[in-house]
């Protein structure tokens, strides 16, 4: 029943996550993720016909902060762990195109 976590899917997810994987890691993760997803087959055995679908694991709702300014970091503190910086900006290799 569960979706097969084949090698191509692991490679795809790795690519989306910007993680380079060796062939051996791909095989290992394919097996491990398959086992995890396989567990959902067990949960599927339960009769959930009369259970409302759950949208969120937390039962709390309406946790708010008021719209009043608080403390921010100084640029110096904010940039203190940046791998690279220029003036008061984080610096990354040049990108082209637009975000989504």
């Amino acid at each position, binding site marked *: 029943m569960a979706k097969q976590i084949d090698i191509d899917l692991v490679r795809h997810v790795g690519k989306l996550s910007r993680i380079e994987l060796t062939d051996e890691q791909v095989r290992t993760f394919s097996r491990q993720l398959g086992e995890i997803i396989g567990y959902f087959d067990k949960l599927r055995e339960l009769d959930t016909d009369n259970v409302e679908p759950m949208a969120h694991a937390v039962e709390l709702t309406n946790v708010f902060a*008021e719209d009043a300014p*608080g403390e921010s970091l100084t640029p110096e503190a904010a940039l203190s762990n940046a791998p690279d910086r220029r003036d008061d900006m984080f610096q990354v290799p040049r990108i082209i195109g637009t975000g989504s």
Partner: protein
Amino acid sequence: MMRTSDDILPVVGLEIHVELATATKLFCRCRNTFGDPPNTHVCPVCIGLPGALPVMNRRAVELSMKVGLALDCKVADYTKWDRKNYYYPDLPKNYQISQYDLPLAADGRLEIPLSDGSTHVVRVLRAHLEEDAGKNIHAAAAHTGVDLNRSCVPLLEIVSEPDMHSVEQVLGYARAMHRLVRWLGASEANMQMGQMRFEPNVNLRIKRGDVEFRTPIAEIKNLNSFRALERTVAFEIDRQYAAWLEDPEGFSIDKLGKQNRGYDDDREQTVFQREKEEAHDYRYFPDPDLAPVVMDKSWRDSVAAEIGELPLARWKRYTEDYSLSPEEADALTQDPETGDILDEAVDTGADARRGVNLLLGRGAALANERGCAIAAVGVTGGQLGELVKMQDAGEVNATAAARIFDILTETDQSPREVAEREGLLAVSDSNQIEQWVEQVIEASPQAVEDATGGGKKQKGAFGFLTGQVMQLSKGAAQPQEVQQILRQKLGL
């Protein structure tokens, strides 16, 4: 371009991103501002440091509800936030907190006024609340700088159904939405500051004989002016028709689906953007750090109670009840305050037509000079009402009323006090007017000769003499009365 006998229907939908006018960001208490030095309004939450926890800004939720309700949307009883996963330097967490399957508001509509006085309804599919990204700054050749001041600023995304079928309708919808969010105080919607951005999707339905063709949908990203939106949509309509003429079978939605295009401002055209197939695999899932929000009826009602008359309702009322032209009604409904002044004046019993003439005459001229809204020139509804009534009663003439209007922008005095102080009350004392007329006749023998000579200079000379008397009266005399007495004295 040659339009043959093909019947072309453009089909346009619009996504609009609006930055909300909160004091602080969506999930942290850094200030929501524009134009400050880079990375001066940042904290562990909005720069995505591990372990930092977002807390929802109540005001942002309320402003979103307000827009949703004003758009006639169904505001959800229960809403939640999801992570949209993608990598980009301006998105430090590597996911954007957005809303996927349970948006805050859905199924609404916006009715928009058109230039011919009719209206058009555009359905609103959904409106959801998400966080804005930071800014990438391409200053140096080899590097990109990242400023995260904008990261986490509340952003309302409003998605329309593809209900627009002309450039005019697209612009009308965009402008109506711009006006609405400003009207509600939900956003400043300043285009230069990127507080309102457009993403149109465009295709054509082309009928040739009995056969209907559909061109591929082009989605154009991130337009930040009405001008760019107008040119983009117009360009796409022409481009798609030309592409279809080249290859009616191949250039179809069935074969090509949807394409992303960017707008090239310099060349004023859209260009194809290649994207990796997997770029849209966002792997949404509920954000475990944020509690869902329940918007019960009493909360919705209290937000709805803050919404007064909306721009279109007022526009209709002005065209119908006050018999204003569509343009006049449009000029008076750019913000709530201008119309409030008119309505307040009318409530005191003043004539609407005269009030509109003053507001759109002197009011608009002064607003233009001062670079502000008409409502901000400084005349209250009470002052306008009294001024209009004085004009109606013949206590001041039109020239004097305009002069008084100007003076009222600088004072809290009543129009009557100003008129008395400045000697602008109409003089209907005919003895006084006779004196002025005699004075002018004595001082202008040439004009008197021309005016009584019956030649072609007669009309001009008579006008000149009238003007001289009006000037002596500082505009306080009624021109009709001046002319009547002049005629008497000159034996005309």
